[in-house]
């Protein structure tokens, strides 16, 4: 399955890029993050993140579809 991943803030810094396309065996956002965390040494624990799929907040165990865009959301600090 092919997905687009977007990175923001500290994750963008750690990944070294703002987005990528990826062939992955992951079927859920949780599996996808675990894969990327291990591969790129991302520092943030999944429990501290939220996830968005196709520009809307999503559940970690929501099934992903081919072509989805996934965004992992670090703890926010607006204001």
């Amino acid at each position, binding site marked *: 399955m092919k997905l687009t991943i977007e990175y923001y*803030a*500290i994750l963008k810094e750690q990944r070294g890029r703002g987005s990528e396309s990826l062939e992955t065996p992951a079927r859920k956002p949780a599996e996808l993050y675990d894969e990327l965390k291990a591969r790129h040494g991302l520092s*943030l624990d999944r429990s501290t993140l939220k996830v*968005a799929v196709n520009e*809307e907040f999503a559940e970690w165990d929501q099934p992903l579809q081919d072509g989805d865009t996934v965004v992992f959301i670090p*703890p*926010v*600090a*607006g*204001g």
Partner: protein
Amino acid sequence: MGLNRFQISEIAIEPDTLRSELLNKVAGAYVSFEGWVRNHNEGAPVQALEYSAYRVLAEKEGDRIIAEALDRFEIAGAAAIHRVGMLAIGDIAVWVGVGSAHRGPAFDGCRYIIDEIKDRVPIWKRESYENGPDQWVNCAKGGL
């Protein structure tokens, strides 16, 4: 800027312009909140500061927050704007304005909106200090 909308902006926030949009539509009581860039964070002197946002979702979630405020409180109109990019000490990072017939709901609605923005809207802050490495505020501890 639009009435009853949340907006991400790359340019300086001008409270007076935003205020007048609410003035045209509503009456009586007006409460506004501004978050200014401080020259310190928990005691550490801040040199520079950058906000970034996941813009599409930030504006969606911000709009939802304002819709919730309009639903929960007896307010006539509300708007909010959050700055992104490099900010200087004294710049406005976030502005919220609420107009209402009476002051109680205007205070309550304004506070609800800023509380929820800080809690829910995907915006991040990176600070540079005089001493020590840059820090993504709220993120550092999350990784431990």
